[in-house]
């Protein structure tokens, strides 16, 4: 799983990305003062051509964070025992499709998940339906299916630990997960 790279890896990648983009103006990565934490030094690094310095600058194009930033969320939610995409879900997936078009080398896995109020084996099948609902919508938006894989986790990996409607609603979901870029 590459969803959560360790922080030090992100920073090293950031440095490389900045260096690669720094053709117009070379970016000097100075060693931080011994007392300064590395994170504190980041915002001071000048970035050529970016109008919104700060947090947005640390998002790596084609990354999970980039997908969440550009599409609003990597997750669409479903009603109880349903795999139909409601208008919110379709709007989200439309933005995800646009992001996938803008990042044509990215491959994603659509994860299907369920709340705990179904039997284990049925929920594996229901999660597969949800993952495929999301996949089919992205394909309908022109995304090459070769870039889209699916997996169902049934009720085995809830996003929220809880047994009320609020938790169940968050757990009935399909998550678009960046696998390679």
């Amino acid at each position, binding site marked *: 799983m590459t969803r959560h790279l360790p922080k030090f890896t992100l920073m090293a990648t950031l440095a490389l990305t900045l260096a690669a983009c720094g053709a117009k103006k070379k970016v000097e990565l100075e060693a931080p003062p011994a007392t300064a934490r590395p994170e504190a030094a980041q915002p001071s690094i000048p970035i050529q051509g970016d109008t919104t310095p700060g947090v947005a600058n640390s998002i790596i194009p084609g990354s999970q964070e980039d997908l969440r930033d550009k599409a609003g969320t990597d997750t669409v939610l479903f009603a109880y*025992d349903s795999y139909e995409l409601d208008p919110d879900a379709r709007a989200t997936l439309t933005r995800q499709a646009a992001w996938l078009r803008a990042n044509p080398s990215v491959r994603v896995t659509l994860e299907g998940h369920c709340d705990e109020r179904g039997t*284990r084996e*049925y929920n594996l*099948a229901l999660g597969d339906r949800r993952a495929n609902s999301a996949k089919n919508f992205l394909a309908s938006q022109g995304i090459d299916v070769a870039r889209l894989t699916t997996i169902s986790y049934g009720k*085995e*990996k*809830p996003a929220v630990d809880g*047994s009320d409607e609020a938790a169940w609603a968050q757990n009935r979901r399909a998550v678009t997960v960046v696998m390679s870029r």
Partner: protein
Amino acid sequence: MRSILLAAILLASPALAQTAAPLGAPLRVDINAGLMQPMPIAVPAFAPGNGASTEAGTTTQLGERAAQVIANDLKSSGLFKPIDPAAYTTTVGIDDVLKPDFPAWRTIAAQALVTGTVTANPDGGITLACYAYDVFAGSEIARQGFVTTAAGWRRAAHKCADLVYSRLTGEAGYFDSRIVYVSETGPRTKRIKRLAIMDQDGAGHRFLTSGQNLVLTPRFAPGQQTITYMSFENNRPRVWLYTLGTGRQEAVGQFAAMTFAPRFSPDGQNLVFSMAVGGNTDIYRFNIATRSVTRLTSGPGIDTSPSYSPDGSKIVFESDRGGSQQVYVMNADGSGQSRISFGEGRSASPVWSPRGDYIAFTRIGGGRFGIGVMRPDGSGERLLTNGYQDESPAWSPNGRVILFARGDRSGRSGLWSVDISGLNERRIATPLDASDPAWSPLLP
């Protein structure tokens, strides 16, 4: 697994044969009688047949432990009430095994007496001799000897308990058997699941997998040396086989899509399981020797949780083809599919009893999950349990007890059992949380 030899008991005396005919009606436990008083039964420490010692302990120690195992087995059935040994007014020496002091046992109101001997054999093994008596009639009910390794003393004791249970109930026993299940730990969002196996009474617990991969729904092969289960190894959710003894793990077939919900056919030659292809789940049969795959259901619904009838001629399964999860039966070749469940709510995860007389299932309705049984034609539906999340029923080898998993709103889960009468609901102790139980057939 090493089998335990049955041995004709050589201790028989001429006097015993003359007392074998019981007076009046034979002692009997009716397991279908509904609310009843458990039968008071005495299980004194088995007498040492000789003074020798074994690698598992002295014959005296093994005799004490064997009696405890037998008493615990009989008590767990809910049909027997072992009398506290502190109340016993007599001890049992080797001579008392053949000629019990019936008046002494009557004074503490024991209706039945289980007694016997443990003898160390020259090869290092043991013989456990098991005798059961009707105390008030003063007559013998059953006797059997079990020859095994010293380490096998527990299994010999379980076989003795099975003998007593079967003679007094008229049903096959189920104590010499094992349970495989999924051991769980950690918060729901980061649950760690491992396959684990233990004796039916919780002894001999061990983990089969490390917890690195998510594993679900283990089930025994009829030969018991193989378990089929589902693993998410390499993020490819597939049906796997686990070989006990060697610990070998092997993916079943080479499928491009998720396979899950596996069970063996009664002859052990086939697996049935579901495969989800592009959002559509159907049931397939996989021949283990030839690796040939046969699709048994089609259509857009979710068809899953297949389970063979004990004669192998039919398969019960669940489908939402009619709008919600219900139980269906088909012939083993996929023909003749028909719905059999028409109760309230949803009926899911059906499992055919090894006796063939009932199908256990999970009922979902009113925000609750319960375990129920119905006849194979769908008639006679009865709900046995009701909980926040009771699911995954599994049958005892004699088809009279159902194991299931019970989850609560805090995310904890454990194993429970209940008689098909709906009585004797009890927790099965496990080291950690537990789900997805399966019961082995009786061991050889």
